[in-house]
């Protein structure tokens, strides 16, 4: 009798598993076209942004290296780089990864794909026009908002469409529990249109008077990183680390705490970009307090991610996704601590207006955000195309080139920027000398940037190769087949 009962249970379990299996495969299949569309456009922008980055970087230490064309001058190329990376690579990849996680976590098929795709097409067209505008010299003088004002309504509108899509698909969820990644995604979808439309209104369309403009500008500039790219990067880490290891997150309680403290503190921190500026001191002080309070969500997230992986570090070497995501999660901790430190007046008096700020920006947006997004692509693509990545070697090359590249980048510019800051504060040193002394560090940046560019090229080749390779049923990253078990310690 016992054997009969257990036999029935086994059969029932198998039926159940086949049901869910079809469902998850269906969910992935429903997202195939939009997700691949956004990942591909993100990678095209990554290529364009990398090219601009190298031109800008080399121009700083070899001013006659490039022909003397107006559109190739540093001011324009640097802004084109920022916008191509932030809004081209960053936003497209966020749309892909956030949408994929959202739909999977809601355990429902993708609804209204046309909304996503229409928004995506308009977003990319507006970006092309905007970046062409920057190169033609029609850029505004506001950092992070350089694109000419005529494209911003289209960007704002297509963005809002994507946010509406996210909220609508959340309403159709079939999973009663909202996972922490969904929290981050929903919040980011709500925050970004808010800050983007507010800053466009107050700085570009109906400019506020005086320093209110700069306050709004940096409120946006910092929140774009903190309330848009950061939540999505953290959400992806919260989903992928437990998912790849097959091990639940160390403490779900800490993840909820981390989310709400980030929501509470990050929004205030942007003013630390204006330390020493002609704005009310209480405003700066509140920005500094919030920047230091950011230590709480960062420590909470770091403990949580680290203790989930602890004891499983050998798996990090066996999984392309984990390798990138864990590198990103560690960089998040480090970059955030440095960021909190740089917000202190005593530190800021040296680091402000130097290359150390540039190093910090790349530490956050590349070593953390971009690395986590690379990891996500490695996880998503096999499930979209139902085939494996063709080459383990190309993945390793991609990882080592970008990991060594960004480490060199951050180290070089942080040290160089710090020396630059100390020298600028020393009235005995002529300004031109402080500029000349940065040249070796700028060269180190070009070298680091070239390494990262080589890594990107490996990735592009691999990505194209994957489309042309044959379908592989049930490879290492694809769904479990009957009787197949993987040993986990």
């Amino acid at each position, binding site marked *: 009798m016992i054997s009969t009962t257990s036999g029935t249970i086994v059969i029932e379990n198998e039926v159940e598993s086949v049901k869910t299996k079809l469902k998850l495969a269906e969910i992935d299949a429903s997202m195939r076209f939009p997700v691949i569309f956004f990942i591909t456009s993100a990678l095209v922008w990554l290529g364009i942004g990398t090219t601009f980055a190298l031109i800008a970087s080399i121009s700083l230490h070899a001013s006659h290296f490039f022909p003397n064309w107006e559109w190739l001058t540093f001011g324009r190329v640097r802004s084109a780089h920022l916008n191509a990376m932030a809004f081209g690579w960053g936003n497209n990849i966020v749309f892909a990864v956030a949408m994929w996680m959202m739909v999977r976590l809601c355990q429902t098929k993708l609804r209204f794909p046309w909304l996503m795709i229409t928004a995506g097409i308009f977003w990319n067209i507006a970006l092309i026009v905007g970046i062409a505008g920057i190169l033609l010299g029609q850029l505004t003088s506001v950092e992070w908002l350089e694109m000419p004002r005529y494209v911003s309504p289209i960007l704002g509108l297509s963005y809002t469409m994507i946010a509406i899509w996210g909220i609508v698909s959340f309403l159709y969820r079939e999973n009663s529990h909202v996972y922490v990644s969904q929290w981050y995604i929903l919040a980011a979808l709500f925050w970004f249109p808010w800050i983007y439309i507010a800053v466009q209104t107050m700085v570009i369309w109906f400019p506020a008077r005086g320093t209110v403009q700069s306050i709004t500008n940096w409120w946006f500039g910092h929140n774009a990183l903190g309330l848009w790219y950061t939540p999505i990067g953290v959400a992806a880490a919260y989903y992928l680390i437990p998912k790849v290891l097959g091990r639940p997150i160390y403490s779900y309680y800490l993840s909820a705490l981390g989310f709400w403290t980030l929501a509470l503190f990050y929004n205030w921190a942007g003013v630390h970009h204006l330390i020493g500026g002609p704005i009310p001191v209480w405003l700066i002080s509140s920005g500094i307090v919030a920047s230091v309070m950011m230590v709480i969500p960062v420590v909470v997230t770091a403990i949580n991610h680290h203790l989930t992986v602890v004891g499983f570090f050998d798996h990090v070497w*066996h999984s392309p996704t984990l390798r990138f995501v864990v590198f990103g999660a560690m960089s998040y901790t480090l970059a955030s601590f440095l960021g909190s430190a740089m917000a202190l007046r005593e530190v800021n008096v040296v680091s402000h207006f130097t290359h150390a700020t540039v190093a910090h920006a790349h530490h956050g947006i590349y070593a953390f955000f971009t690395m986590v997004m690379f990891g996500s692509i490695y996880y998503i693509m096999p499930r979209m195309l139902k085939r494996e990545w063709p080459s383990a070697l190309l993945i390793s090359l991609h990882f080592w080139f970008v990991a060594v590249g960004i480490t060199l980048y951050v180290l070089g510019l942080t040290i160089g920027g710090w020396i630059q800051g100390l020298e600028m504060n020393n009235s005995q040193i002529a300004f031109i000398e402080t500029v000349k002394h940065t040249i070796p560090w700028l060269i180190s940046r070009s070298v680091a940037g070239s390494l990262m560019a080589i890594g990107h090229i490996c990735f592009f080749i691999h990505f194209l190769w994957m489309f042309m390779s044959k379908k592989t049923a049930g490879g290492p990253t694809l769904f479990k087949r009957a009787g197949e078990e993987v040993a*986990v310690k």
Partner: protein
Amino acid sequence: MELSPYVLVMISLGVLFFTSAILALYWCTKTGQFKDFERGARSIFTAEEPEGMQTDFFPGKKEKIKK
């Protein structure tokens, strides 16, 4: 004192923003998002990609780990 129309707009937007945050927090507690953390942490696993199964490897490297 002259009040710029911005102040009114900004205050109303700020009120709206914080109201939505408080509503979100209220909704969370009401629907039990802060209860049963154990279940929350496990909600990402399905029968297809269950708990205890590693789901990502370098291409062609899975066999080595199985040993």
